């Protein structure tokens, strides 16, 4: 063959151990008594169960439907009865359970009606893709990416090479090898369907040179087609997607990119076979070839096994000596996961079950210090410096790890394999990658929060500006009015009555502001209560351990909200009475103004407004006094004016304090939102905030005389803050104890 083979850098040659499982033909596995079919056997969203407990299902019947674009349906592997839909242990790196549909097999193995598509070439491309998708076909080698997403690329995408990955470079595994040896025609037929779908310039099958029988079978099967069988030297990990693409085409998939970006599509051998079954036989993906091997297995070989078959059922059939196994590995010895529970089911990506004896794969030796021997660098197929990445991952220097391209690690395990110090490098890299992902997610979240905050800031500023302009306009009008009145007063000093009107107005403003403040308190407390309730719900759903503390908090907040509401109602009534007592147009104007500002519906805004108004009133009073002093009207008048001024000043200060408090409260409300994430931290914060608030309220209270209008409101606020502080501290203690 004249095709050039590009050599991948690095790579290792572990003992192959493939012969053990190639001694027999493919063995059909028994139908187990009970099948556990996870609704997620692929990358992407889990499927949605579409059957009920108690339903009778037939073989090949859809039992879970795709739930989104990157999702796949699941089918009943045999006929029987659904006896449960519940969480069961599944193969997962974090040992978490997954939703499974449990089928009690009736041993009739009765097929649902299914139709083959003859002459697929005459059908629409999208129809064929949809058929493959409905058959639930995902990549059957590595991660289990839904195959149709690769195949369903936009028709204008130019695909130069379609590659069937038959390298199968991991030791022990012979699932693809045996499949090709025995069913090469069907594999090639599946490949031809994919060829028709993506219309590549050339179609290649990459296979390692340690599988002579499979190579011969493929060559025979592809003799009359334009498909080329490319034999590559045996070296781990030449079967990695990026590696086989480079081996066969010399193209590198850009970091973070997809193979289709460089005009390549790579599919797994098992996938091609499944596509063929789906199109030419109408069968969905309900079984696969799995290698069962390792010295603890009596009948080593390749089993055609129904998806959902529990691992122990398959191992029993293969005659596993359970007392001899040191560990159970799902997948190959290089990249497979050791499984924690032998009840986990076989899924679409399970290409191998390895049950080695202690002698075969001994326990790893203790980790020794890295001596930077560089063996890992020599074998890394991605051209990384694992010994540097190890330091960075270990010391959490994520920026440096990123700079040294940790993200491009394919976790093939070659570095760990050769490490003389027995350092589990891959584990460090997984940890480092996880940390980087976490950090990036946090950064994204922080960015969002900042944007929101900046937007809000801008909005507030804009509103402030508008208010300021309005106020200026009003002040000008008032000044004009004042001037006119002054002119009138000059004409007739005896009837000058303008002094007292302003304090009246100011007082009513203060009253109004107190009411508004109370309303703000009420709404913010209510909001906090609602938030806390929401947080509680989330926590309950997630099984959070601080539920009790949260519950307590919600109750407290509810009480507070109720109290705030009653206070507000009272105050409103009182205010109304107050307003009706104050005669004159000023009060009406104030009410109007209140009404005008009401629609903004932002308590902060209102408080600010009230504070600004108070301030203005004070300034106006001051102005008044000065004017009067300058004009040297009679002494009594000045005296009263001064008093008015002092009062107005006090009020202004009080409303400012109220506003500050409200601001603190608002901040607290924002904090409350976070409570679901970190209750203890949040509670601590809460406690601190409320404590500060209480102090502030006390300060504000001290600065006021008792007869002042907002005194009572502030006192209530102070008491509330005190209660809040206490409850927050209680909650914190509870959380800390929890």
């Amino acid at each position, binding site marked *: 063959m004249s095709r050039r083979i590009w050599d991948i850098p690095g790579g290792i040659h572990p003992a192959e151990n493939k012969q053990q499982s190639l001694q027999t033909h493919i063995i059909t596995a028994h139908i187990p008594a009970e099948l556990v079919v996870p609704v997620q056997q692929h990358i992407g969203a889990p499927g949605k169960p579409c059957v009920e407990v108690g339903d009778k299902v037939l073989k090949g019947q859809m039992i879970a439907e795709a739930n989104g674009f990157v999702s796949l349906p699941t089918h009943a592997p045999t006929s029987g009865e659904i006896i449960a839909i519940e969480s069961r242990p599944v193969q997962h790196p974090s040992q978490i359970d997954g939703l499974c549909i449990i089928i009690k097999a009736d041993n009739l193995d009765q097929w649902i009606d299914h139709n083959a598509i003859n002459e697929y070439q005459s059908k629409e491309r999208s129809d064929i893709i949809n058929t493959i998708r409905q058959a639930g076909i995902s990549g059957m080698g590595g991660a289990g990416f839904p195959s149709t997403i690769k195949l369903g690329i936009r028709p204008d995408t130019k695909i130069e090479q379609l590659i069937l990955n038959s390298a199968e470079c991991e030791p022990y595994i012979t699932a693809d090898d045996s499949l090709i040896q025995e069913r090469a025609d069907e594999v090639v037929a599946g490949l031809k369907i994919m060829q028709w779908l993506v219309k590549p310039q050339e179609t290649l099958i990459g296979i390692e040179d340690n599988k002579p029988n499979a190579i011969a079978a493929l060559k025979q099967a592809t003799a009359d087609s334009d498909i080329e069988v490319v034999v590559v030297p045996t070296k781990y990990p030449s079967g990695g997607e990026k590696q086989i693409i480079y081996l066969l085409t010399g193209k590198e998939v*850009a970091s973070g990119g997809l193979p289709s970006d460089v005009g390549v599509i790579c599919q797994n051998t098992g996938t091609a076979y499944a596509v063929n079954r789906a199109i030419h036989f109408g069968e969905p993906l309900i079984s696969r070839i799995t290698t069962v091997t390792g010295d603890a297995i009596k009948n080593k070989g390749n089993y055609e096994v129904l998806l959902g078959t529990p691992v122990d059922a398959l191992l029993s059939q293969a005659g596993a000596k359970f007392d001899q196994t040191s560990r159970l590995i799902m997948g190959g010895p290089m990249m497979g996961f050791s499984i924690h529970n032998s009840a986990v089911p076989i899924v679409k990506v399970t290409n191998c079950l*390895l049950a080695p004896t202690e002698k075969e794969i001994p326990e790893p030796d203790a980790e020794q210090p*890295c*001596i930077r021997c560089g063996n890992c*660098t020599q074998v890394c197929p991605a051209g990384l*410096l694992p010994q540097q990445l190890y330091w960075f991952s270990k010391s959490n220097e994520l920026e440096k790890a990123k700079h040294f391209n940790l993200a491009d690690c394919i976790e093939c395990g070659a570095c*760990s394999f050769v490490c003389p110090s027995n350092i589990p490098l891959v584990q460090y890299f997984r940890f480092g990658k996880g940390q980087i992902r976490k950090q990036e997610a946090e950064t994204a979240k922080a960015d969002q929060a900042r944007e929101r905050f900046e937007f809000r800031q801008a909005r507030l500023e804009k509103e402030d500006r508008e208010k300021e302009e309005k106020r200026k306009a009003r002040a000008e009008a008032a000044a004009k009015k004042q001037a006119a009145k002054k002119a009138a007063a000059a004409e007739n000093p005896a009837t000058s009555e303008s002094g007292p009107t302003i304090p009246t107005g100011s007082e009513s403003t203060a009253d109004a502001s107190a009411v508004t403040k109370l309303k703000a308190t009420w709404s913010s407390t209510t909001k906090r209560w609602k938030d806390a309730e929401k947080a509680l719900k989330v926590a309950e759903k997630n099984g959070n351990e601080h539920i009790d503390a949260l519950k307590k908090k919600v109750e407290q907040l509810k009480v507070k909200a109720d109290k705030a509401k009653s206070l507000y109602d009272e105050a409103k009534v009182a205010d109304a009475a107050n307003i009706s007592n104050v005669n004159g147009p000023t009060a009406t104007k104030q009410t109007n103004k209140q009404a005008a500002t009401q629609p903004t519906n932002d308590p902060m805004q209102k408080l600010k407004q009230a504070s600004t108004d108070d301030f203005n009133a004070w300034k106006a009073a001051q102005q008044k006094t000065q004017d009067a002093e300058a004009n040297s009207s009679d002494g009594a008048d000045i005296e009263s004016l001064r008093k008015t001024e002092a009062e107005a000043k006090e009020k202004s200060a009080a409303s400012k304090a109220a506003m500050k408090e409200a601001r603190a409260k608002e901040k607290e409300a924002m904090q409350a939102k976070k409570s679901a994430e970190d209750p203890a931290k949040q509670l601590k914060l809460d406690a601190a905030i409320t404590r500060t608030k209480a102090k502030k309220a006390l300060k504000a209270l001290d600065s006021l005389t008792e007869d002042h209008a907002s005194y009572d409101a502030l006192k209530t606020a102070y008491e509330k803050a005190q209660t809040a502080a206490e409850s927050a501290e209680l909650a914190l203690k509870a959380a800390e104890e929890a």
Partner: protein
Amino acid sequence: MSVLHVTSPHVHRPFTMNALMRHVVYATIPGLIVLTALFGWGTLINVIFASCVAIAAEAVVLKLRKRPILFSIKDGSAVLTAVLLALAIPPTAPWWLTIIGIIFAIVIAKQLYGGLGSNPFNPAMIGYVLLLISFPLEMTTWIPAYTTEGVTSIPTLTQSFEMIFGSVDRSIIDGITMATPLDTFKTYAGNDLAKLQSASVLQGNIAGAGWEWVNVAFLMGGIYLIARKIITWHIPVAMLAGVFLFAGIFHIIDPDTYASPIFHLLSGGTMLGAFFIATDPVTAATSNKGKLIYGALIGVLIYVIRAWGGYPDAVAFAVLLINLCAPTIEYYTQPRAYGHKKANSGIAK
């Protein structure tokens, strides 16, 4: 059923650190044999004695640092350090010289920095340099090699023992010692051509009496290491090329003052340095490009110090100085990763 939960990969190459260190020690055997044959039993005694001292020193420090003692000693790194240091010092070196050098190498240069894998400098060379600058007399006088003109015998086993452990008057030893070829060359080159040509120590075939055989032996050991894939060819080749190139240029310019490149390659500690010292992975660069730069810099520096510096040999100084550069070299010689158009370099921003 007991199910062990470990992460992939599950299989490992059965090649441990202990094996790695052991093979390096094996590779020094040809050099050790030649040294013993030419200079008597001194070197062999030193190697054994130094190894014992090193293990003891390592055990004491590990105990003080509250680390598992046996686990760390089993890796064999202390013994390797001891062997390399013992090979570098003269066969007549008294026992306390070895003790001081080893303790300094193990305790200060290695364990105080955090133990194996954390030391920025080659411990054996730190020990060597300490001895060289503190006790220049003991460290630069060698007994003449067996093949030197006029030398008819080498010290017997008892004599060697007495020289190292005995309380013999040092002046007796001093009476039979002789400067090394490099030292002799440094003394006479460029100013006393007649003496240079008549010095008996320089009457060897290529690079002074006996020394070429020592270097050839270490070269063989080095080739064994490369064949066993314990070291790669990059550092030794780059280093020897650096020495050769510089020595060649200056020898062409002025052959009377500057020795021939072959002389430089086969005298002193050149080969020992190239294959055993500079390739110490802990203190060297690791990427292939980095190793080439690292090795070449050492080579050049060796020549510079030999030709114009104050000391006749320079392997230890050169290695230590370039050890200091290794992290920086590492940052700027990252290989290009798969899927990237060009290699990253420098440090993360």
